[in-house]
């Protein structure tokens, strides 16, 4: 048994290494009449964490919204192909993907045209968008919101809805991971939450929804040092898995101390102008965006 597990794991790594999850090609996007993304290309493989850094107005949030399908962010050219490994099943939304991930990577060319999907279908396909400014929904409790969300995704994937008890168990577990008490989960979505609480709530949602790809838009903004650490370890615990990937949009090096990226990209004027390893983030911190964007 032990031996076969070992074999599986090596095989899995081998397969996953080649498993491209997201392929963005020559993406152009406009907001109103202004073109913000001007031919952005990016590839993300399963198991990888990518950080995107860049000056204000470079198009970082536009990239997140364009991938999430937000109305008003119009893609005018380019393509986005999403090819997740099949979602691990089981109660709790397949929370234990590090134990027994399904090893059937989709054949090449079988990915989903992400841009053809509605926002809620993108979520069901396995994409999670972490908001820079999480939205308040008065009158709808966090628990109700999350249960509706999770079960909508599960039903869309042909899985069974979780019962109330199963859901509460899962919610408790994920809230504890982010040091959030159940009373907060009973309150209306983000209403009266501090900036830090809203961000932690985003991570609790991510834990419960268990996505394949998390696109986190400035999840670190507005966090104090302790909250940053909690959120960082939350991201690691939930998303640092061989069958998952993260696109981390951030301004600062600090979050990257907690969540170590495999790749760092510099986004300037709607395109990725430079790509490197974690050392690029340090260099940016030291020299600033301008110097690097100009040299690129």
């Amino acid at each position: 048994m032990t031996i076969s597990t070992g074999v599986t794991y090596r095989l899995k790594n081998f397969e996953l290494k080649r498993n491209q999850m997201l392929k963005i090609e020559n993406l152009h996007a406009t907001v109103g009449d202004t073109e913000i993304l001007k031919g952005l290309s990016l590839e993300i493989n399963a198991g990888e964490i990518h950080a995107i850094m860049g000056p204000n107005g470079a198009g970082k949030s536009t990239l997140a919204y364009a991938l999430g399908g937000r109305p008003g962010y119009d893609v005018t050219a380019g393509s986005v192909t999403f090819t997740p490994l099949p979602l691990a099943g089981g109660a709790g939304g397949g929370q234990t993907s590090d134990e027994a991930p399904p090893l059937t990577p989709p054949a090449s060319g079988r990915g989903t045209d992400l841009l053809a999907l509605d926002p809620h279908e993108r979520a069901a396909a396995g994409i999670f968008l972490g908001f820079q400014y999480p939205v308040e929904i008065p009158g709808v409790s966090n628990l109700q919101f999350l249960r509706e969300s999770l079960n909508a995704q599960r039903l869309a994937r042909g899985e069974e809805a979780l019962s109330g008890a199963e859901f509460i168990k899962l919610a408790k577990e994920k809230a504890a991971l982010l040091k959030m008490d159940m009373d907060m989960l009973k309150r209306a979505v983000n209403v009266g939450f501090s900036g830090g609480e809203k961000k932690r709530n985003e991570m609790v949602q991510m834990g419960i929804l268990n996505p394949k790809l998390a696109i986190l838009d400035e999840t670190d903004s507005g966090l104090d040092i302790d909250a940053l650490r909690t959120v960082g370890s939350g991201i690691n615990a939930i998303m640092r898995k061989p069958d998952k990937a993260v696109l981390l949009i951030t301004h600062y090096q600090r979050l990257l101390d907690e969540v170590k990226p495999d790749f760092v990209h510099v986004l300037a004027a709607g395109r990725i102008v430079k790509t490197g390893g974690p050392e690029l983030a340090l260099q940016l911190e030291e020299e600033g965006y301008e110097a690097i964007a100009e040299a690129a």
Partner: protein
Amino acid sequence: MNAPLPTRRDESWRYADLKALEPVWAKLTGPEQITVPAGETVSRQIAELPVIDGVGMIDLDVTIGDKATFILHVLAHNADYGRIQVRATLGNGSHFELGGAILGAGKQTLEIVTETIHAEPNATSNQVVRSVLADTATGSFLGRINVARHAQKTDAAQSVKSMLLDRGATANAKPELEIFADDVKCAHGATVGELDKQALFYMASRGIDPVTAKKLMLQAFIADAFVSVDDDAVRDAIEGKALEVLEGLS
């Protein structure tokens, strides 16, 4: 009704559909008299209007005794022209509670018109009205509050919020306060808005389809009108009815 047909010059009828009203006016009976004896509580829920030829009318004249409470919850939806008209006269230390939802679509004209008379001191009143209006429907709330000269320590509150689902829909909200006492609290607030697009996208980004997202938001929006129903089963019934109507709107 023996009284002459109202005209739009009468302030409390200014948004009414008088054309629809005219043919049925003679068939309407006058207001129903309700007396709440001192110290007692009377609750009434109206989930459907009694409709004659497309016109649904509820007309109540309520006298609330000293330290008594009258609680009214209404749902205005099932009429081409629907009007819920309440005149409440409050005794010393009494309370009047109104929770109402107006759910209109098509060419419906629906309104809740109240006259709250704080005739004696120490009485409180609280009115919460939520409207959801689609197509070219019109929903109105006219709330008049009179505070008599000696009705000190009156505490009267009105909260009126309307949600317009379509460009052609109309919401009217008109608080009207006549206060002759000087030691009183009269709070009133009114908003008119549409579904929060950011919240809709936020919900979509979590996997909730647009129809369900809209339903959840509208459900939460009108829930305010029914929080004051103290019996859970009664609240579930009237909220359930409201939800059923809401589903028809979207």
